[in-house]
């Protein structure tokens, strides 16, 4: 029963935090909203008995991604405290599309028979260990795993390159006045 309450509370909090994250014009606060959502997600993972993923969620999302966003905001100093409008002019279209999406999804979930089903079996207590083995097993998931690693590495190098790129000073060599003499 506690689980129900926790679920309800956390879900509500997550939706509210998500709304903060997408509406607040202060990007730091929006990021805080995002962090809250991410944290709520981790809680839900625990409820779903996916402990490894819950830990990964906290470490990767909150520990890395959210921090990265905060850093990015701080690096571009006055973006963080910009006081312009939060949305662009065509935001109404976004509402329409998002609304349509919401209606569609809700409809779909409501009409899906499996939506109110229960879990068929409990989770193996050794599950995390098995998962680890499956990830590196040749007949298991080693290829997706490696592809993901390669993707990460590529993204890392690309990110460094892109962020580093503009540092060179462009334009002609500035001449000193003494060299202009004959």
């Amino acid at each position, binding site marked *: 029963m506690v*689980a*129900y309450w926790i*679920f309800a509370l956390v879900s509500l909090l997550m*939706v509210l935090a*998500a*709304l903060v*994250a*997408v509406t607040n014009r202060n*990007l730091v606060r*929006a990021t805080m*909203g*995002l962090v809250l959502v991410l944290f709520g*997600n981790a809680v839900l993972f625990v409820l*779903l008995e*996916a402990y*490894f*993923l819950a830990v*990964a969620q906290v470490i990767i999302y909150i520990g890395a*991604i959210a921090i*990265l*966003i905060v*850093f*990015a905001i701080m690096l*571009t100093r006055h*973006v963080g405290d910009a006081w312009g*409008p*939060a949305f*662009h002019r065509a*935001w109404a279209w*976004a*509402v329409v*599309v*998002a*609304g349509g*999406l*919401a209606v569609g999804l*809700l409809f779909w*979930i409501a009409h*899906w028979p*499996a*939506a*109110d*089903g229960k*879990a*068929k079996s409990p*989770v193996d207590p050794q599950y995390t260990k098995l*998962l680890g083995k499956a*990830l590196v097993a040749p007949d*298991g*998931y080693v290829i997706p*795993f490696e592809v*993901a*690693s390669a*993707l*990460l590495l590529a*993204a*890392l190098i*690309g*990110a460094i390159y*892109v962020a580093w790129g503009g540092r060179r000073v462009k334009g002609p060599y500035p001449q000193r006045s003494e060299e202009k003499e004959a």
Partner: protein
Amino acid sequence: MIPLGAYLMVSAALFVIGAFGALARKSAVAILIGLELMFNAALLNAVAFWRYLHPQGFDGTVFAIVILAVAAAEVAVGLALFIAVYRRFGTAEADEIALLRG
């Protein structure tokens, strides 16, 4: 036990909110936040389906892990681009940058 539909509803709500944010916000970072929300929704979906439909298998978990990795990569590249764009244009308002215009 909490029905699967509840998780799916939360996930859908997060997804729609994230989509709205990604579509409507001006700031590139805010768009990124919206995208992160959508990723999380997908993640939640994946984990929920695994738990309810196929708890013995690894597909759902691995899928979630891959999503995690992709999200991390996406955010890294996105932020790098953001910084580069900010340096070059002095702004990070996505609607002001239209280099891809045909």
